[in-house]
């Protein structure tokens, strides 16, 4: 078990997948992170050297991920609404924000779009 940014990962997991388990890190970001510390993409968590784990943790703590990122997204939506923009209004109404049609196929928007958006 290896701790990365305070989260415990089993040794057999891929490092790439472990990184992607953080909110705000996807395929590309994780690939770039790995390249930065010369970790090959098929590396398992158990194979990481101590220094690499520390490096990764340090790099992750500098990034805006997890709750910081969630808070920022919610603030952005709120700001849109408060400045009275169309996008803010659509968020509040639970309708698609980016000009999609609304006659059909807006289930995702109904489910997700609101002021206090669930992330």
């Amino acid at each position, binding site marked *: 078990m290896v701790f990365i940014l305070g989260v415990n990962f089993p040794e*057999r997991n891929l490092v790439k997948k472990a990184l992607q388990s953080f909110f705000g890190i996807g395929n590309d970001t994780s*690939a*770039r992170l*790995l*390249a*930065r*510390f*010369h*970790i*090959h*993409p*098929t*590396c398992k968590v158990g*194979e990481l050297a101590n220094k690499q784990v520390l490096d990764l943790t340090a790099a992750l703590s500098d990034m805006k991920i997890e709750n910081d990122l969630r808070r920022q997204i919610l603030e952005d939506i709120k700001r849109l609404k408060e400045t009275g923009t169309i996008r803010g*209004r659509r968020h*509040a*109404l639970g309708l698609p924000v980016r000009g999609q049609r609304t006659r059909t196929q807006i*289930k995702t928007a*109904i489910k997700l779009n609101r*002021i206090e958006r669930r992330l």
Partner: protein
Amino acid sequence: MVSPLCWGCLTLLRQAPRTILPSPTAVSQAAAFHTSAAIYARVPAPRGRDSAVGYRRSTSANIKKKRKVSERARPPPVGERKALRKRIVLSNPNALEVEGMPELSEETMVDSRLRGTVVGLPVPMLDQLRAVQAFKPKQGWSIFRRPGTVLRRETLEMGRLFENISGEGEDRGVVIKRIISGQRKSGKSVHLLQAMAMGFIKKWVVFTVPEAGELVSATNSYAPLSDENPHLYVQNEATAALLSRTAAANKAVLSKLRVSQHHPTLSAAKPGMTLEDLAKIGVQDPASAWTVFQALWLELTSTSAVPGLEKNFTPRPPILVTVDGLAHWMTHSKYRSAQFEPIHAHDLVFVRHFLSLLKPGQDKPTLPNGGALLYATSTTTNPPSVYSFDVALKQVAARHAGVDPSSPEFPQPEAYSKTDPRVFEALSSPKPTAAKEGMLEHQVLGGVTRDEARGFLEYFARSGLLRETINDELVGEKWTLAGGGVIGELERLGRRVRVAA
């Protein structure tokens, strides 16, 4: 008419309904955007059972479908599938023993009378061949009693070269450099296997890279070589694996040779220790694997000892280097630099070292004690198709044939085609200055001749796999069906059972 009520009273009046209407905060914050007052909106009816169905859900009877019960709940243990996939079976106890089958030995490997016969690989050597991963899982060794290979023309020719390099004649210590290519299933990997077997017979030191693709597919760890060379990358685990292969397969040879050079970068290398122990340092500590490999290479390519260590020195044997799947090394690897740029395969020191051997040495041959470099373009591991490499191979052949690189006959890449100058640079080896060093050649393996095909099919028949009389007609038929004697196809036809009407 003037209303008896003043404006102030009216405002008072308007305050009144607020108490009975729902409070605006209860409706929605979003009400501010509506054009119609939210307070007049119809109060939603209390939801009954029917309306509990979600938006646009089907209201028909929703019978839960039976889920398929998976009987095989537990997957096989970790690593088992890969082990099965990579398993190499070298013997089939049901197949008949071929009587009078000659063994590969010093005499048979140069005996041209045996051309076209299948010779068995000596049983004690099988462990060595397994150690260098000479056998591939899909080569069909598993249907015969014991592994054997057919002596084709190219094999005997190679045997003669090996004989000369090891012998006492004027060709002693010559270096041959070859890139072996050929169509699918034409026996390139088995050709390398034969070379390794001959190397073991002649007591050479054999270095092999059985899967060149594994070095560039980003499945091994990598790290920058040093702070001075941030653009070169070292693969410690792959190097350690190479050392362990070499140490295991060449145990008999390496345990008799002793360290006779100074290795300032490697403190663990004591003068007088055997080279086998030296290699094992790198196996045990992968972090130092590359340094150990360099030290080992320096030892094996030395022609004399440094002053003070003469008593440890014994003449070094020739070296055989085989690489299977050269095309993988001619393009970008899957590794990424810290700036997320793809790393070229030639920037990996492992690859760079083995490619640099193709070039002629500076003042002495690249292998001063003689030996052979056989690099094959394998087709089993789905190699990339690199245009520059194809053209470079043609250039190698032309240069070997004596075509002047400035002449119009010299093959050039097509104009406006995307080429990789590093590939051309790596394969453009001019005529070597040292007399004992051969020029880089391009050998194309084609089909076997009909006589060789006949010997091969007879081997099938004598193993009890092919139940037909081997006559010219049958051999001609199979030879033609196999695309002109492509040996892998012949093998497939040989094991196919033909059923009479």
